[in-house]
């Protein structure tokens, strides 16, 4: 070991990564187990070890959360064949399969590939699934359709072998307007479509780019890198930002190895200079990347377009939403959703970052019929967007990092928020529950957020949650207190009652808390 000491400037993970990022799951199946190094590299293939020994989790990459119905059917089949028939929707619009066994990993990957979907780069130190507004294509508030850009960025960065080894994960999201349904302020890159008038009076479209946001143990709100980027250059700009992260990110200490720390340490100006340099080096003309503020035009958007029930799209067709409790469903339900999209919708299944499923393109006259079909599966279709759509992470049910069983808090809170007295504020607050400070369910940007912890007792300790209120997509909530699990429901009730009393007009809980100075 002596000889390595002089040059040791990187974490152990970096040494493993340097040894190569290739895995053969057939060979692993024959061998029957993975070494520690293989488990680490396996993340690049979207496969993680689970809390339960011998089981694995696979995360299927779905750019923008849009699946064709045949892809959805394929996922349902894979879940049935290899994952005990269960699947889960994530807050970044992926699908996770738990309960995978080592011998079936290779077959699972092959089966998915038949419908052009994969788990590749589902986890690991790479660009993760590129997220976007689920309503991107037809939302009436959107500036323009960002879905093609989601797919272009996903393709460019996933195919770039020089971006395979980033310091850590790298997350990109696209929003169609400033409402921030896709949470642009808490991603490494948050991209928001903007619209303005040229001096000649024409409409001009582009993107505003924020970088350096993030949750986790050190939350940051993203800072504006460019105020206007022409849409055709967006993917190249994303690539340059990834290069910035690759070359300037922390590689010694993984807890600081995120783009948010690069931005915080170097400052946004320095980061912009480096990004421009990378772009110029690759022959991209950067003259039309702007940093000056300008007056935005375009239709006004509400605070939370996602909370609207059965929104009508720009094509005159309706979106029907299905609330998937805890984001968990069976392969039968998922397959049925694919069928419903084939019968009533545009033959696509849309996954949202609130772990729900949408069917787009339903003719107005068929909405009731489609909704009834969805309710038949057991999913709610109306009156749930908001308060009752609690988003928990998987918690100790599967996750090795989690501290608490978030699903059981979900069960405790659900009766509280379902009370009829809260009917009028059902769409005024969002609740997120996360099992650890990693904030897979981003609790700091929800109106009400719970984060798992343990509180010590005289001897031993018990599950508890830190409670925050007042977060929204560009603002972090404030801490209210720490409560043992059984005290969370009464505390939530107090907060909701207070909100009922004090709210003004249409304001959300976050706005109310902000107005009252919290």
């Amino acid at each position, binding site marked *: *070991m*002596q000889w*390595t*000491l002089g040059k*040791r400037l990187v974490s152990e993970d970096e040494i493993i990564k340097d040894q190569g990022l290739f895995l053969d799951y057939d060979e692993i199946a024959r061998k029957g187990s993975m070494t520690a190094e293989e488990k680490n590299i396996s993340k690049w293939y979207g496969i993680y070890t689970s809390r339960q020994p011998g089981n694995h989790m696979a995360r299927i990459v779905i750019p923008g959360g849009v699946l064709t119905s045949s892809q959805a059917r394929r996922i349902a089949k894979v879940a049935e064949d290899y994952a005990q028939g269960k699947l889960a929707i994530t807050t970044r619009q992926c699908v996770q399969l738990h309960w995978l066994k080592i011998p079936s990993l290779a077959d699972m990957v092959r089966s998915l590939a038949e419908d052009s979907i994969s788990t590749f780069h589902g986890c690991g130190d790479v660009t993760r699934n590129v997220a976007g507004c689920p309503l991107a294509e037809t939302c009436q508030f959107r500036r323009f359709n960002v879905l093609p850009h989601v797919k272009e960025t996903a393709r460019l960065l996933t195919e770039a072998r020089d971006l395979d080894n980033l310091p850590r994960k790298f997350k990109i999201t696209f929003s169609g307007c400033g409402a921030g349904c896709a949470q642009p302020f808490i991603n490494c890159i948050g991209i928001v479509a903007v619209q303005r008038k040229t001096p000649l009076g024409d409409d001009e479209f582009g993107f505003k780019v924020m970088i350096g946001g993030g949750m*986790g*143990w*050190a939350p940051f709100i993203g800072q504006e890198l460019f105020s206007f980027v022409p849409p055709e250059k967006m993917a190249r700009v994303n690539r340059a930002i990834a290069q910035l992260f690759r070359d300037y990110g922390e590689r010694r*200490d993984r*807890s*600081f190895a995120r783009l948010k*720390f690069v931005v*915080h340490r170097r400052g946004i100006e320095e980061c912009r200079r480096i990004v421009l340099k990378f772009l110029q080096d690759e022959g991209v003309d950067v003259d039309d990347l702007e940093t000056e503020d300008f007056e935005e035009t375009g239709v006004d958007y509400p605070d939370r377009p996602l909370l609207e029930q059965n929104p009508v799209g720009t094509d005159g067709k309706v979106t029907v939403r299905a609330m998937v409790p805890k984001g968990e469903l069976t392969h039968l339900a998922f397959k049925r959703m694919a069928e419903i999209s084939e019968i009533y919708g545009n033959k696509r299944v849309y996954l949202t970052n609130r772990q729900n499923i949408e069917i787009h393109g339903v003719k107005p006259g068929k909405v009731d019929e489609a909704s009834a079909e969805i309710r038949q599966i057991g999913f709610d279709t109306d009156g749930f967007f908001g308060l009752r759509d609690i988003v928990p992470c998987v918690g100790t049910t599967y996750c090795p*990092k989690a*501290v608490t069983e978030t699903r059981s808090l979900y069960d405790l809170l659900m009766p509280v928020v379902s009370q009829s007295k809260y009917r009028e504020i059902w769409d005024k607050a969002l609740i997120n529950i996360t099992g*650890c*400070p*990693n904030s897979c369910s981003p609790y700091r940007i929800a109106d009400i957020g719970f984060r*798992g*912890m*343990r*509180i*010590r*007792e*005289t*001897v*031993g*300790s*018990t599950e508890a949650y*830190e409670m925050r*209120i007042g977060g929204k997509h560009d603002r972090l909530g404030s801490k*209210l*207190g720490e*409560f*043992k699990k059984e*005290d969370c429901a*009464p*505390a939530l009730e*107090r*907060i909701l*009652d*207070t*909100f009922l*009393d*004090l709210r003004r007009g249409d304001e959300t809980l976050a706005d109310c*808390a902000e*107005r*009252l*100075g*919290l």
Partner: protein
Amino acid sequence: MENNNHLNPFLKAIEDLGVSYEMAPNPQETSVFLGVGAEPLDFKTFLKDIPCQDACPAKTNVPAYIEAIAQGDPDKAYLINQEDNVFSGVLGRVCSRPCEDACRHNWTGTAGPVHICHLKRSASDYKENPPKPLPSWFEDTAKKVAVIGGGPAGLTAARELRRYGHGVTIFERDSVLGGMMVQGIPVFRLPRETVEAEVKAIVDSGIEVKCNTGVDAALMERIMQDYDAVLVAVGAVNPSNLKLPGLPGDGHTIPGLKFMYDYNMGLIGDMKGQNVIIVGGGFTAVDCARSCARAAKRLVGAEGTVTIMYRRTEAQMSADPDEINQMRLEEIEVETLMNPLSARTENGKLVAVTFQRNALDEEQSEGGKPRIHAIPGTEEEYPCDLLIMAIGQTRQLSILPQGVSQTEGHHTTHENIFVAGDFNYGSFDVITAVNDGKEVADKIDAHLMGRVRRKKHIAISFMDTNGETGRVRDHDIQFPVQMPKLPLPERDGTAEVELGHTADGTHIHATRCYFCHYKFEIDQDACIHCDWCIGVAPRDCINRVSRLFHDDDGVVTSSLEANLAEETTYIWIDSDECVRCGKCLRVCPTAAITMRKMEMCSCSTAELEEKQKDNVPYGAFKYEKFK
């Protein structure tokens, strides 16, 4: 109402809920979080955490000086040593190293302790500036102290008394200062320039020295009149003797210390071809043997033998295994379990000594060494031209004035007369003498000034380095290189045998140190039991614990491990296992883990009170890992 958190209706609603929990206390390992701690808890935690410093009689700040060496600053390391143990160049060569026996590397691992002693020498070897006198603590007091005896204890006491502001005069019987350091230790183990430089740094602080001044009753009388206090530190120089039947008069047996004195003063001539037997197993016996081997030209293959005869086994000898190894190389026989019975002479000249074999008993004698008994019928005769008796020394108590005798500790029946060093407790090692010199200086100052003017405390500072101590886990498993030694043919009577660690060797040994003065601690009120620290822990250093057990001063003595999350009251860092890698701090998502530095310092009582005003108690400090 707006912008006032106390009156915020949401906070008020939560307050009205009236939730409060009964919790186990948040354990605190020091009396203050930051600042200066002077409670028993602070000292106990400190010494428990840093066993080498606890083991050092002079309480040398071992981790701090090793850290300075690891950071490439030998001058700083030397200064730390000079402050704590006065003769660091000397001790870096000849110390008895109780610290290394206590080093935490002995608890686990097989590569042995950090070479604490030799690192001290490296600091001395690689420093750029010669040793300088240390600054005084107080203004001159116009009090005068006489120190009788210029050995390690006397010199140390003189330096400290001078820093207290007193006038000091050293009376030395010999022509040079240094005591046993120059008279007893052979020059091939301790070059005289090293001693001279360090003695000079003491004398230069303004101490009057009277060499060649043996103190007799008359002089003592005068000293008693002229000085406010007298420190007697004349060592233990009366050789113990063993009467063997058959021994002729003088000339053929010689006390070990006398032999060493003559050898060091160049009075020993050529001993070529002689058979020498040294009786004894202490430092002196070994030094005599190695000196004889040189004087008798054994190292270049001359005839004759040099043999150590010791009544117990090698395990009980004062020499360390490395030195015993060197003796083997130098063709010195070590015969153990041997007891001299009688001598035989021919023509008035010693020719042989008869030894009888011993056997070890299981029970221990008072000194902690096993008892022995002779085995009858095992007598054997060994040829011998010169017999050296190195079986210890006793104190010459007659130097104290008539009617004065030693009482408790450093005191005597005369309130102005103090004793220190070997003269206080009998023949022992340099580091203990240094510590005794420091202690007696404190007592003399308190006696002269009527109050304690300096106090020890634990200084606790916050380290905002994201858990970086400069060491990684790989540093623990380095191969500890041995110190280069002089080749056998070049070992004449004076050339130093141990050459000191190379720069690379020094770095390896310095980075092996765990830097135990850093304390990683979890704030239990901020901990959420996510266990991520346990996940990255390099060894069994962080545990789930259901109960902690404290002693009366609040020091955690043991813990009860928990298996389940429900049983876990605390996530607990075991400082005894912690290798100060900082991984836990870096991974902690709630910044519950902090890194602090603990150092034992002393300062004037007034300064201490001033510092205590800035103390930060537990709970008042919130670590923000990322601002």
